[in-house]
């Protein structure tokens, strides 16, 4: 399943770090952060519920990019 989330991130390097962090989250098959469009596209592994995974993604992202926000 693929979902697109609106995000808020100030710097391009932070966006890259978020992408890396999201990719390292369990249940995430592939994550792409589009800094210019302020969007995060996440492909979830089969059978995983985004509701369980997204809070973890957010937590990981906020560790690497403090002021970032994901709207889900």
């Amino acid at each position, binding site marked *: 399943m693929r979902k697109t989330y609106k995000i808020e991130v100030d710097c391009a*390097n932070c966006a890259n770090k978020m992408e890396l962090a999201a990719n390292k989250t369990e249940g995430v098959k592939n994550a792409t952060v*589009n800094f210019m469009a302020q969007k995060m596209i996440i492909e979830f592994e089969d059978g995983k519920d985004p509701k369980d995974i997204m809070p973890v993604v957010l937590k990981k992202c906020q560790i690497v990019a403090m002021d970032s926000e994901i709207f889900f």
Partner: protein
Amino acid sequence: MTKKQKKVLRRILISALLMVVLAFLPLKGWLKFVLYMIPYLIIGNDILLRAWRGILNKQVFDENFLMAIATVGAIALGEYVEGTAVMLFYQVGELFQSYAVGRSRKNISDLMDIRPDYANVEVDGEMEQVDPDEVEIGTIIVIQPGEKVPIDGIVVEGKSTLNTSALTGESIPKDAAVGDEIISGCINMTGVLKIRTTREFGESTVSKILELVENATNKKSRSENFISKFARYYTPAVCYGALLLAVIPPIVRMVFLSLAPEWGDWIYRALTFLVISCPCALVISIPLSFFAGIGGAGAQGILIKGANYLETLAQIKYVVFDKTGTLTKGNFEVNGIHHSTMDEEKLLEYAALAECHSSHPISQSLQRAYGKSLDKTRVTDVEEVSGNGVIAKVDGIEVAAGNAKLMKRIGTEYVDCSHVGTVVHIAVNGVYAGHILIADTIKESAKEAIAMLHKCGVFKTVMLTGDAQSVAEHVAKELKIKEVHAELLPADKVHIVENLIQNKTEKEKLAFVGDGINDAPVLAIADVGIAMGALGSDAAIEAADVVLMDDDPTKIAKAIRLAKKCMRIVYENIYFAIGIKLICLVLGAVGIANMWVAIFADVGVMVLAVLNAIRALFVKNL
């Protein structure tokens, strides 16, 4: 500017002012330290706070942390002015970056200003403005002159002219009358139109195009991936470099050379390293260049579906065309009237009248060429001879119009045509009156388009077609295309393109240009699939990597040129930013570059790279 940006600007101005004032005061010792801490904390409080939180989160190589260490270090060494200034310029750079990104985002959405805000729906005789999202299929909506068509539909009432320039980049007006299908994103120019919607807003052309452009930067290019990887190693590497620079030279001096260690000097040099370690300039300027390039192209009616395709477009060396619909118009037109025994206009009138009851493409092109309205009552005793043509009485005179077989059938001598195309022979009263040549016409700009392609670095153009060999060769000769493959089945086209791909090097890319209707498999195997004249055709938009909204073949060369410009900017930024940073690192290590130079290497380079990236947006006159 947003509220957040205004706040930062205020802090920058206040602390800059304070620094200027302090520079004129004769300050010494503790008083100087305390007074300089005021602008330092005003400008740097959030950075320090974030750096602290970063340490708690074990995120050491974070810009905030680096800036905090560099400036606190400078202040500890007694360089109050430099410490504060570095923080100040860093904030200026961050502000500029966020402002520039915001502006270009807005610029691009302005360029692609095709999103309709409302639809007029008639409810109980009253006009009401509703959100286009809420309009159901089959609803009648009203479009006033000057308004955008919000949803695709069919005209049920009214007549007008539409401006498609927002979609195609060309301002050629298009007429719309009852029964015509019109697509969203056009601007209604002259009359009031009532249309019955055929799609939901989300499925309409305008939504699809916007979605495509917005999501294009999701597909990252190789250069982008390279930079994010580079950034991942660059910052830690420079940080460790700084640590070594602070520790090793003094120890070497002390232990091996028996000199004074000069700790302060070396620590200062190490701090200079930290200021240069931020990869911001690189990381921001690359996606920004692609975003601007794709946005600028979109405004010209060239939709590029990913940054990776922009990269590939710049390396196109082979262009393969499917003839019909790309180089030729794909509809049949009267190309010439030969051996006519009467006035050419008169011959055309006879032919058009004789065929006026037929809906065959040939008879329609005759009617189009005649141009005037036909009085069908003048035609009697119509006899269609299947596969041969028509024999009918026009004003009581017998007219036979058809191919050579028809002429043989009625026993009339005819003259063969020396040109390529479909020939309609005409006999009046059993006497040969001449023939009309009907052929698929070459687009006016096709020849120029091929020449332009060769000019921008394409070394081979190939034409594929299902048409007869003679027709194909004629078109190829006209357009100066060297390689032609004719009489192909769809599967043959795939084979030929596969062969071409195998016989070229990896760095030379191949583009296939089709009308997107039945060439999806070929579009898919080419390095870049380009669909033309896609306005209103979902299949084409779906199948291709690059979509040309109108059917002007010169746009292909334009797309390649703008891709090249964009890639040039990307490489300029990569070399420039990495180059300056490396030079400054070396100069910093040997003690020539101080912190002022370092902050230029960081902020100055970023500002220049961002400004350079924005150039990719301006592609109108390419």
